[in-house]
C-alpha cells in the first residue's frame, strides 16, 4: 500500500502579484501525529517556499498561528490532521481581517484597540517597592485570572459576527483584557477604562452571540467578560442617575 497522503487547499494571495486570491492544492504525506502547522511547514520546506504565514512556539501559547481551518478559527499548532483525514483540509487567513499576504493578516486594528483599553495596572497611589508586594488572596487572583489568559491569537475576532459587520467594535479580546484589570483587586483604574468600554463601539455593540467564547483556545470566555462589563456599567449608570447622592 502506498504511504497515505492528505491534501491541503491553501488560500494564496500576494498583493504584488495577484489581483484576487486563489486556492492552491498541495498533496503531502499524512502523519497521524501532525498538526496542520506541521503540514504547512512541510509544504514551505519541501514544495513551495513562497507560502507566507506566521508561527513560533508550536505549543499553543505564542498566539501567532491562528488560521481558518475548514471554516473554523483555530490555532494551526493545535489542530490535528487526523481530525480531517482522509478529507482535504482547507486553510485560509483568519476571517474579518485585512490580508497582508497568503495566511498573514494585518493586526494593526487590534494593536490599536489593545492600547485604547489601558491594559495596565492603574493605582491612585503607588506603594514603594521596598514595602513589598500588594497583598492578593488566591480568591482575589481567581476573580480575574481567567481573563488574564488571553494570548491575543485573534480567533475571537475571526469568530465574532459583530466585528465582521462593524470593524470599529472594540471586540472580545480587548474587552476581556479591560475586564482583567477592572477585576484585579490591585487596580483602581476602572473609571479610566469606562469611557472606551461603554462608548458606542464598546460593550453595547455585542449582541451576545457567544462565538468568541467557543473559539477561544484558552477558555478566557470573552462573552462572559463582556456581560459582566455590561452589568457593572449598568449599575454605575443607575447609581449615577437614580442615586446622585450615593457616593462615588
Amino acid at each position, binding site marked *: 500500500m502506498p504511504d497515505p497522503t492528505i491534501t491541503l487547499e491553501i488560500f494564496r494571495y500576494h498583493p504584488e502579484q495577484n489581483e484576487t486570491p486563489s486556492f492552491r492544492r498541495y498533496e503531502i504525506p499524512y502523519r497521524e501525529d501532525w498538526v496542520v502547522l506541521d503540514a504547512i511547514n512541510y509544504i514551505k520546506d519541501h514544495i513551495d517556499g513562497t507560502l507566507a504565514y506566521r508561527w513560533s512556539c508550536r505549543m499553543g*501559547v505564542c498566539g501567532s498561528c491562528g488560521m481558518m481551518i475548514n471554516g473554523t478559527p483555530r490555532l494551526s499548532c493545535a489542530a490535528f490532521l487526523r481530525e480531517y483525514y482522509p478529507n482535504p483540509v482547507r486553510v485560509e487567513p483568519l476571517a474579518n481581517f485585512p490580508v497582508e499576504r497568503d495566511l498573514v493578516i494585518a493586526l494593526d486594528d487590534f494593536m490599536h484597540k489593545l492600547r485604547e483599553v489601558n491594559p495596565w495596572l492603574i493605582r491612585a497611589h503607588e506603594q514603594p517597592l521596598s514595602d513589598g508586594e500588594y497583598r492578593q488572596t488566591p480568591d482575589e487572583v481567581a476573580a480575574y485570572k481567567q481573563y488574564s489568559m488571553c494570548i491575543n491569537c485573534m480567533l475571537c475576532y475571526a469568530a465574532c459576527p459583530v466585528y465582521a459587520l462593524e470593524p470599529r467594535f472594540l471586540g472580545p479580546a480587548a474587552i476581556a483584557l479591560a475586564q482583567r484589570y477592572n477585576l484585579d483587586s490591585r487596580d483602581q483604574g476602572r473609571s479610566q477604562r469606562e469611557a472606551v468600554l461603554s462608548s458606542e463601539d464598546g460593550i453595547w455593540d455585542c449582541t451576545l452571540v457567544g462565538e468568541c467564547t467557543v473559539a477561544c483556545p484558552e477558555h478566557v470566555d470573552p462573552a462572559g467578560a463582556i456581560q459582566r462589563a455590561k452589568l457593572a456599567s449598568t449599575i454605575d449608570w443607575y447609581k449615577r442617575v437614580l442615586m446622585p447622592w450615593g457616593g462615588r
Partner: protein
Amino acid sequence: MNEISEHDIIVVGGGAAGLRAAIAAVQADPRLDVAIVSKVYPMRSHTVSAEGGAAAVIKPNDSLDEHINDTISGSDWLADQDVVEAFVREAPHELIQLEHWGCPWSREPDGSIAVRPFGGMKIERTWFAADKVGFHLLHTLFQTSLKFETIKRYDEWYGTKLLVENGRCQGIVAIELRSGQVRLLAANAVILCTGGAGRIYPFTTNGAIKTGDGMAMAYRAGVPLKDMEFVQYHPTGLPGTGILITEAARGEGGILVNKDGYRYLQDYGLGPPEPWPRLRAMELGPRDKLSQAFVHETRKGRTFAGPYGDYVHLDVRHLGEEKINTKIPFVRELAHRYAGIDPVHEPIPVRPVVHYMMGGVHTDVSGATPLPGLYAAGEAACVSINGANRLGSNSLTECLVFGARAGRHAAALAAQHPPRDRAALAAQARDEASRIAATFIRKDTGAERVAALRAEMTRAMEEGTGIYRDEASLRKTCDVLRELRDRFPSIRLDDRSLSFNTELIAALELDFMLDVAEAVAHSALARTESRGSHQRTDHPRRDDTRFLKHTLAYRTDAAPRIDYLDVVITRWPPAERVYGR
C-alpha cells in the same frame, strides 16, 4: 534608503529582557525616546513559552547567600561571582516590580507571594503564576510598556546588521516585513535582547524564532561570543515535538523512572531517593546532571524505545488531580494534546531536549559589550550568572535584572548625545540593502534550499555538540559547518518578492545560525575539560588550572579565534558539586 529613523536608544527584541530594558530606559530619563525593533509582535516572543517560574529571595527562611551559593555551584564555578551577587541582590526588587505592574503571581492564603521548589535550589524561592509564568510575565511587561508614549515599536522588523562607525555602535539595519524595504534606524545606543539560538539544533524546546540573530550580529561587529560551548539540555521534553514539560512538575513532587519503574537518578550521585520531595536531590538536581544520567540509562538499555528516540517516564500521578489542575494545568494540557495521555492517570514520556544557551554576547555587569554603544541582556547575552549550567527559574529573573541594568546604562550613554555619522551610516545601510538584494532577491542561480541546509546544520550540531562530546565528533561537526558555510551562497529562494517574504527571513536566520553554530562547536573543541553541560568523554574531569576561564570566540573569515578570560571568584572558591546529600 532616503529615510533615517532616529532614536536615542534602539532595543532589538521585544521579549522580557527587551521590554524591561525599554521601560527602564524611559523611566531613567523620560526625555529619551526608545524604539523596540522586533521580528515578531512582542507578545509572540519566546519568553511566552517559559513555564515554571522566576527565582528571587523573598521568604524569611531564605537568604541572598543561599541563592548565590546555589547559582554558583549550579554553574560549576564558571559564573562570575560579582555578577551573581548583583543578580541575587536585585532579583526580589525586580519581581516585586512585576507584581506592582500586575503580574498574576500565585499566592499564599494570606495574600503574600507563593514560592515553589526548583532544581538545584536548596531553598524554595521560585515565584510562579501556575505554570505559564513566562506568558504572564511577557504580557504584563508588554501591556505595561504601552503606557509609555516615549516607547515606539517597530513590530515585525527584522534586524540584519549593526552599524558601527567611529568605533561606536550607532544603529541597525532592519527589514520591514510588511513592505520588504530595508531601513536604517540610527541611535546613540543599541541593546540586543534577541534571545537564544536553540534552533541550531533539531530537537529543542525553542520556538521557531530562536535563531541567534543578535548573537550573530554582535559577533559580526567584532564582539566576542562568550562560553558558547555550554548548551543546556532540559531533561523533560516531549519526544518528537520537543515541547517543554516544566521542571515545576518535579518541583511539585513528580518523579523520573526508567522502563523498570526505577528512580534511576539515585545511581548517578543524586540519591538517596527518600525522603521525597527533597531539595537539591534526585529529580530536583540540576539539569545538566539529570540529562547526563538519561544518556547513561539509555546506554544500559533501561529506557523505553519510541518512534522519536528513547524516553523515560515523568510520573506525577501521585500528586492527584486537584494539585495537577492548580499547580501545573499547562503540563496536563500539553501532555494531553501533544502526547495523547492524561498525566492524572498515566506517566508522561520525556527525554532531554536542547533548551537554553548559557553563552552569548560578552557583556559586563551593566550589560555593556566591549563595543561602545552596544549592550545585550537576557539569553542573547552572557553576563555570566549561569556559567556552565543554568539553574531553572534564574533565566526569567536574569531578563529582568539585566534588562533593567542595560536599559539604565544605555540611557546614561544616550543622554550624552554623542554625534552621529549620518552619511557614513547611510552608506553602510545602502551596502547592506544591496547585499541582501544581490544575495537573495535578485539572484536566480544556485540550487540549495534553505530548509535542506538548515537540516544538515542541525543534524551536525546534534551529532557533534550534544550532551557528550569528543574531539573526533567535534572536528567532524566543525568541518560540516564550514562546508555548509561554503554552500550557503548557492541558496536560491523560491520567493523573490518583497512583501512578507518569510523565505528570505529564514535564509538570513540560517546565515546567522551558521555563525552561532560555529562558535559553539569551536568553543567546545577548544575546551579540553568537562564542566557542567560541557562533557568531553576524552577529557572527563574539570580542570580548574587551565579552564577556570570564560571562552571568548571572535569571528574571522576562517574558523573562530578562541581566547580566554579569567572567571571572577570572590567568596566562593571552586569546590565539588554535591547533590543528594
